[in-house]
């Protein structure tokens, strides 16, 4: 049974010991949780250059181990990019590329300043017949070489959809959870709870409550 946004909101209220009309409004909750799940995804995808510019060691990028890929799997999608004159736009919910293929063959990422040499290559020139494909990235699209390709397959991590605790009003004008129109998170249950606990940092800042911040920091650092 997947965790619903209502269960999460109720847990939050329980933790901060506020009732439904307390300081954590549903709007705040929606914002805090949605931002926190994006931050959590960034943690999984990797944070860059925390230590140095050598791009080595921990915290440098997506570690594609079984645990992380399983956590991200609800967001991993396969899509086809339509390519026109060599340019293929990324999907609107694109977050991180996992693989790029054309006709089942790999597409090699090159630097922009390698384009001329790749075009002049005699060993691996861009070629449809030889399945030699390259790409660089501009703005929100890929530029492919050779520019005659018409489509590409993209495996990517999509951005999480913001959660929404939808409500209606009871007879006393209080907000009551309305499953219809609510948006539940798609993370696995354990991750939902962890994101919820991490979110308390923002709640703590909002309420000026240091104990929430410390608790959330403990969760971020130790997982509990």
């Amino acid at each position: 049974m997947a965790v619903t946004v209502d269960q999460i909101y109720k847990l939050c209220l329980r933790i901060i010991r506020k009732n439904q009309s307390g300081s954590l409004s549903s709007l705040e909750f929606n914002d805090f949780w949605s931002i926190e799940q994006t931050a959590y995804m960034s943690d999984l995808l990797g944070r860059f250059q925390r230590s140095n510019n050598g791009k080595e060691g921990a915290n440098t990028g997506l570690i594609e181990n079984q645990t992380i890929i399983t956590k991200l799997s609800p967001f991993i999608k396969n899509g086809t990019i339509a390519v026109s004159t060599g340019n293929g736009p990324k999907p609107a919910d694109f977050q991180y590329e996992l693989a790029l293929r054309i006709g089942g063959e790999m597409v090699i990422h090159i630097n922009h300043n390698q384009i001329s040499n790749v075009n002049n290559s005699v060993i691996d020139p861009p070629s449809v017949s030889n399945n030699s494909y390259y790409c660089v990235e501009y703005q929100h699209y890929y530029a492919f070489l050779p520019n005659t390709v018409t489509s590409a397959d993209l495996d990517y991590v999509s951005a999480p959809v913001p959660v929404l605790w939808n409500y209606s009003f009871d007879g006393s004008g209080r907000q009551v959870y309305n499953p219809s129109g609510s948006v539940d998170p798609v993370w696995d249950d354990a991750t939902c709870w962890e994101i919820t606990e991490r979110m308390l940092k923002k709640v703590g800042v909002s309420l000026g409550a240091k104990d929430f911040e410390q608790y959330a920091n403990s969760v971020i650092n130790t997982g509990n």
Partner: protein
Amino acid sequence: MAITYTKKLLIERVQRHIANDFPSAEFPISSNEVLLYIDSAIASTFVGSVMGGGKITGSMATPEAYVVTAQLSSLVKNDVTGEWYATLPQTPMSLSLGFSITNAYFGDAADGVSQPIWLIKNKRVAYRDYMPKPNVVSGRVVKDVFYLKAKDNSPLLNLPVYVDMVTTRTTDVNETIAMPDDILDVVFQKVVTMCKDRMNMPKDLIKDDVGQGSSNVSKV
């Protein structure tokens, strides 16, 4: 399961050895590059083994596993020399005729196979022209061109020429590799060494978090 030994197999074996896994799109050495390393390693290993074997046994020999039969394109007459010529599949190995090209002949389904073409070194052509010889066709090689001449200067138009020669280059990576198995290890080691040389050169990565075993990222 029987595995067919092809150059494609060897390419994959090298790439998986270096990546310690299936290579990803970030693997910095393309299949064509590995193939070039393999082709050159086979060539140098072949010549080395023939010369080395000659030193030990006293007689040079071309292992048959390297030899591939190729049918040449239609013969064309050179109006200056009167010879007929066709292009070989590749430049011959740096060994004498007889070792680089082991045999050449005409053949077709109707008439069968001709007498072997006499392979003559370029420097001996003038001398041989004044030597008695049977009524055969002689051949010489310049770079990758095979020049043929009948003793009586008969035209060789439309005669299909076949050449048995040591072939290291690749036209089809899916063909069974023309190389004895005892050389596989030498070729593999040579190619891996070349690749390791490259991997040790500092280079930035386009995508992040390629494992150290399969990256050529700077250790700075």
